């Protein structure tokens, strides 16, 4: 209905393959960006930053990473929590070892380290498929958590076994530690997500993305076309883990500030992120964001609704919340197995054809 595509013809492959070929879409995206960058920081406060926006952005990053692996390359992974832990501990070790090192560098390096770990734990995918692989990745989850819990070097031999983020600033703005302004940390995280969201899109729409999808859709045919499964799968694990690692880094550095591995990165993290990917839509960048938003906001809303409105006891509310989450997830899988992304797609098609039905 709002689309006016007549006259938006493409005279080059370049424009034809741009991410948002339709002008109206570009406008909308630009609008969102403007709001996110300029409007939100003005009205942000600690609650919004810590309870809503930071987790939303950070989980979106993680979901993005996992979606690359599961949605685009078709390799199921239940090790997300573990990989996020790698990212977190890597950034902890780096920033404590080299205090003057720019936090951005720290996070990127943590991503790279996680990527390496990811490739290592991805190796089994060359021999095994489907749920065998899924279960195999659980190994990484358990092993990594155990490792960070067991080896004191990782948490600098402190008594608690906790890791705590020292205050760091980037270009004069304090990003971490208690004094960090919510607006700043938010923008910091936002910057990461926007840049890496774009990068992810660029990768998946190019040769490598097609390589992954080929492996996902029909690995045999892919190989007979000259796609090397080793390259495809390992690169997917690497990129995916990089994203998850960076997410883990942000999760620890800018959001939690302090983390205890066994609870911050336990297996439920893995499931949570996987849910985001599924509910958001496998094989969709947009979906990763929507999924993250949904699974971050839903519990908050449920909790507020029950505790603040219905005045349910917090502990009961917790149980109800768990139950409802389960129900909601099942409900979603039933009504739209392809997630929000598909719903959005359908809506968009309808808008483009309006007023015609087809």
């Amino acid at each position, binding site marked *: *209905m709002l*689309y*006016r*595509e*007549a*006259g*938006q*013809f*493409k*005279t*080059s*492959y370049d424009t*034809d393959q741009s991410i948002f070929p339709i002008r109206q879409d570009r406008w909308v995206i630009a609008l969102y960006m403007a709001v996110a960058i300029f409007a939100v920081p003005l009205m942000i406060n600690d609650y919004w930053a810590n309870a809503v926006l930071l987790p939303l952005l950070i989980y979106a990053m993680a979901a993005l990473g996992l979606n690359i692996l599961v949605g685009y390359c078709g390799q199921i992974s239940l090790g997300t929590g573990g990989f996020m832990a790698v990212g977190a501990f890597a950034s902890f070790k780096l920033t404590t070892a080299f205090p003057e090192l720019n936090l951005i560098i720290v996070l990127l390096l943590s991503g790279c380290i996680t990527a390496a770990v990811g490739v290592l734990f991805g190796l089994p995918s060359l021999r095994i498929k489907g749920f065998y692989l899924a279960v195999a990745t659980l190994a990484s989850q358990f092993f990594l958590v155990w490792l960070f819990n067991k080896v004191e070097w990782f948490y600098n031999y402190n008594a608690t076994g906790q890791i705590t983020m020292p205050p760091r600033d980037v270009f004069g703005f304090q990003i971490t530690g208690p004094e960090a302004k919510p607006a700043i940390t938010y923008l910091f995280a936002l910057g990461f997500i926007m840049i890496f969201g774009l990068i992810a899109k660029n990768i998946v729409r190019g040769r490598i993305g097609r390589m992954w999808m080929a492996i996902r859709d029909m690995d045999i045919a892919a190989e007979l076309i000259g796609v090397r499964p080793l390259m495809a799968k390992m690169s997917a694990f690497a990129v995916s883990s990089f994203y998850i690692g960076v997410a883990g880094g942000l999760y620890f550095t800018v959001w939690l500030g302090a983390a205890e591995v066994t609870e911050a990165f336990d297996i439920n993290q893995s499931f949570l992120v996987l849910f985001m990917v599924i509910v958001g839509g496998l094989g969709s960048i947009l979906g990763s964001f929507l999924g993250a938003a949904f699974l971050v906001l839903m519990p908050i809303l449920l909790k507020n609704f029950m505790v603040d409105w219905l005045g349910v006891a917090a502990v009961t509310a917790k149980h109800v919340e768990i139950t409802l989450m389960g129900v909601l997830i099942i409900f979603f899988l039933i009504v739209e197995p392809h997630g929000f992304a598909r719903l959005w797609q359908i809506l968009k098609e309808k808008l483009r*054809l*309006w*007023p*015609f*039905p*087809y």
Partner: protein
Amino acid sequence: MSGADTFPKLLLENAARIGDRPACREKDLGIWQTWSWSQVADEIRALACGLAAMGFQRGDKLIIVGDNRPRLYWAMTAAQAVGGVPVPVYQDSVAKEMTFVVDHAEARFALVEDQEQVDKILEIRETVPRLEQIVYSDPRGLRNYGQEFLHSFEAVQEKGREYDRANPDFYEASVADGKGADISVMLYTSGTTGNPKGVVLTHDNVMRTARNNQEMEGLNADDEILAYLPMAWVGDHIFSFGQNYTAGFCVNCPESAATVMQDLRDIGPTYFFAPPRIFENILTSVMVRMEDAAPIKRRLFHYFMDLARRVGTRILDGKPVSAKERLLYALGNVLVYGPLKNTLGFSRIRLAYTAGEAIGPDIFDFFRALGINLKQLYGMTEASVFITVQPDGQVDTETVGVPAPQVEVKIADNGEVLFRGPGTFREYFKNAEATTETKDAEGWVHTGDAGLFNEAGHLKIIDRAKDVGKLVDGTLVAPKYIENKLKFFPNIKEAVAFGHGRDYVAAFINIDLVAMGNWAERHNIAYASYQELAAHPDVLDIARQHVEQVNRDLAQDPNLGGSQIKRFLVLHKELDADDGELTRTRKVRRNFIAERYAELIEALYSGQDECHVETEVTFEDGRKGVIAADLKIVGAETFPVAAELKKAS
């Protein structure tokens, strides 16, 4: 304005003036490949020199066959540049028709699109020995055609570039040699009878008409047009070639005939021409698709379309409209009109023309109600299209507008429309007799159409001149005009009006079995056959109402008011091409019908109110049979004619 008097010269001007602006596009390999004016100039230069290198002489004809393709348009200018004459031929014409044109035009060269056309040419080659060289644009499937007289477009251009290097000033010189009075194109019009005639148009003809219309409508280099009608048709030649050069706007060629609608949507032209039937098809498809839409949407659609029909055209013509309705219309624009135009590809249209035959008022209004500036024009090949055009804000279905700039139009005593103007053709190629028949000493061209000017000075085409008759009292009778009015009612499929040499006008009517059938079902009227339905009193009554409505309209027109239908009957069978009552193109063959149903006509003019008839018919399976019927003859009310009223008062 520019001083160029030929298209090759104009091309050089454009290349210099707006060299980097797009001159033409073609949907190919998934995107709209674009050529700027300077690129086009180079391409054409190379091609022209190539032709010259192949021995293409001044005055030579270049046959051009194929779908609308930039290269074929370039070929026209290329031929002109070296003093030759492009002769576009309908791409769907069969070998026989092509043989005539190629032979009659004495062409030595042909430039065709693809294998299909090459095969056609090869087929006729024996019969037209004059044809020497054939150039093809698309090599697909032509790899193993060894003939030495076949050349690929690229090869010719290559030759051309060499030739150009060899004689650097050849091209400029030969372009400079061209005069405005030279022949710029020959367009063969398929006359209803006999062989096609080659209409000879000069650069002046095409260029001046193109410019005049362009200035009248304010076309400019920012406009976009979709070239999808046959290149051999004068309309396309003016819109997609002539004005492409004079206005410097961009011509867009669709990917293929099958994708025209999609490509139309891609481009969203600002300037658009289509014959009435295309608009009709679009309207039908819109309605059909909307039928499948969700009820809410459908209601929304119909509500706003009604609104649009009420106020849309008025707003378009800048007539006063209440604020409330303006507001509603704006809302409708967001919800319905805008999206609708968008999906049809009409969002950006500033100017749309239709012509060729009478367009149904509801079709015409539908598009104008959407805010599309759709106008009628009256033209013909011999005039380089424009004879009359409807100026903005003075549009209606009845007329075809006022004389185009610099064109004089007058009505002969027999009612025939005559014109003369800058676009008037020079002659019919090698057909002096026909030329003198059509174009008299003072340059007046006989259109063969009967028409008249209304008080607003707008021309109204009423019929073919030869079909116009007079009642005994001398009132003008234009059967086709009356029939069209009748046929605009969905319930009426065909109509045949009589009156020449009679005291009043009478008519045969064919009801539309589909439309009336639906009506019958809704009013649960059972019927077994067309004949039975046609004889039903209610049906006759409806027919009468329609006839009287037509009479009312006619009464508005002082000149034709006298030719109201007094008596009519609804035929017992559908007029059928198999019975020779219609031409294959579904035009009524009135004389044949007049003979065949002589007794019915008598009945119409004698007082009797019923008449028995027996008719031999041919069924689908070719068997012949006889159907008999007793037909009611219905009298219709007639109304006082407007002018006469004035007189009275």
